[in-house]
């Protein structure tokens, strides 16, 4: 695995993927600033990369993807978010990303990752992440997907995350523009004492999209806290299943799961499977879920302001997924 040189830019694919990135809502200026750590991967090629002081970024091209190691050095608080862009522009392809992230003790960083497959007809995108967040470290990870309008994609993100004592981890996954295709998320987070974890996912299913999300949090350290929040809107013939598991295994741990799935259309299906386990008599896990139709009162309220039924649905859905 080699260290990435600053501002390495290769191939004519670069402007194309940056253009797609911008169309998907990304901030392309981030990839031209020397002060911002960034990485652009198209298929199995690293097109550009930049690292900043306090971050060590390594990559290795593999047959069907890229292995990436990102380390934030102890005590470093990275001023600007790290921007990552993964994508495939052709209609077909396979991309496997092995991601190892190590946020050392007392370090702090945000990552904004875009995964872009605007023309996907037959694409598989897999991501296997192994994330270690040190003691008193803070890591905020935001992942935004755009898959185009054809739905021909399978996305399989898997992550194992360990959060150290008093560490903080926030993860936001968003797939609300274009089609989903088939999505199968699998995250497992293990929390040490007094750590705080928040996992948020927002997904908008259309046509025959399939959404399957599995989040598990192990609150193993005393006083650890977690929130799993999911907002899924399956429409048309799409199908969603959200499984949230929280295991409160130590004293004074607090876990909460908040699941909202709004079904729009007679053939759309939403399923929620909450699993709450407390193995300590001083622990507490709670759950709230709303599955089914759009809230009638919200609809009537918006209609009493002059919106018609379709406009009201649109406003409510946009709000939920924002």
């Amino acid at each position, binding site marked *: 695995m080699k260290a990435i040189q600053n501002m390495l830019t290769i191939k004519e694919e670069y402007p194309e993927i940056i253009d797609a990135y911008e169309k998907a809502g990304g901030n392309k200026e981030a990839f031209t600033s020397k002060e911002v750590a960034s990485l652009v991967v198209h298929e199995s090629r690293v097109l550009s990369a930049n690292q900043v002081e306090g971050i060590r970024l390594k990559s290795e091209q593999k047959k069907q993807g890229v292995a990436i190691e990102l380390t934030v050095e102890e005590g470093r608080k990275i001023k600007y978010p790290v921007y990552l862009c993964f994508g495939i522009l052709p209609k077909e392809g396979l991309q496997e990303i092995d991601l190892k992230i190590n946020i050392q003790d007392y370090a702090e960083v945000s990552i904004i990752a875009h995964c872009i497959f605007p023309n996907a007809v037959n694409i598989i995108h897999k991501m296997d992440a192994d994330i270690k967040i040190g003691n008193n470290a803070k890591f905020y990870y935001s992942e935004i997907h755009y898959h185009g309008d054809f739905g021909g994609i399978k996305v399989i993100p898997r992550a194992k995350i360990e959060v150290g004592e008093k560490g903080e981890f926030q993860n936001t996954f968003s797939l609300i523009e274009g089609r989903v295709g088939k999505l199968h998320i699998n995250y497992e987070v293990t929390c040490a004492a007094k750590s705080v974890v928040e996992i948020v996912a927002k997904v908008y299913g259309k046509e025959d999209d399939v959404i399957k999300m599995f989040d598990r949090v192990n609150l193993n350290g005393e006083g650890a806290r977690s929130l799993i929040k999911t907002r899924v809107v399956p429409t048309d013939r799409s199908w969603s299943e959200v499984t949230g598991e929280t295991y409160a295994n130590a004293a004074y741990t607090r876990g909460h799961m908040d699941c909202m799935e709004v079904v729009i259309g007679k053939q759309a299906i939403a399923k929620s499977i909450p699993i709450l386990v407390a193995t300590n008599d001083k622990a507490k896990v709670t759950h709230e879920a709303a599955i089914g139709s759009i809230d009638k009162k919200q609809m009537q309220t918006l209609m*009493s*302001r002059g919106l018609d039924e379709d406009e009201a649905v649109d406003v409510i859905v946009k709000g939920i997924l924002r």
Partner: protein
Amino acid sequence: MTLDDKPIIDDLNLHVEKGEIHAILGTNGTGKTTLAYLIMGVDYLPDDGKVIFEGEDITRYPISQRANIGITLAWQEPARFEGFTIREYLELTNELKIGEIEDCLWAVGLPPSQFFNRAVDASLSGGERRRVELASVLAMKPKLAILDEVDSGIDVVSLPHIINGIVKMKSLGSSVLLITHNEDAVEMANRASVLCAGKILKTGSPKEMCQWFRQNCQVCDHINMPE
């Protein structure tokens, strides 16, 4: 209008004058909210009778059509919305200048700098949410605002802000149907009516109606049955 064969609104005649605040007094369960819903077109249709607005029979109009001709409702328990701000909520149907939104918030005692970008979700207290509801009605500049117990459960500090919002509504030319239990709120009305068991029993000056309501309705044993 009946519900499970029980008359909820029965032989009711109510006329709200243009530009007036008309208060409706009534104990719990007398049909106040049902009356508000009938006028707004929410949930119920009358078995008989008509809802006339500016000479137009709107009895069968859907909610949004009624809103688009100038009627709106401030809900007793307003819905919460994820993901959009008070500013966006106030701008739902009207493109407003920032100053206009600020005016609406100030009118109900919500400092814009603190509330402009707050979400209209569960993070607002009950009183704040009701005041946001009132501000959003103000922003709509309706011809008829139906206010369904917007002062209910409001603390004494917030109540003057609610009253101020209603006064502002009138000053902007709206007619107001003010459903309330609060005599302080009734006092600002031009007229008041007493509702009991789905009937308007009396209409008169706010002072007279409050007195009559105190002497008759609040000691009435038979809720939902007029004397």
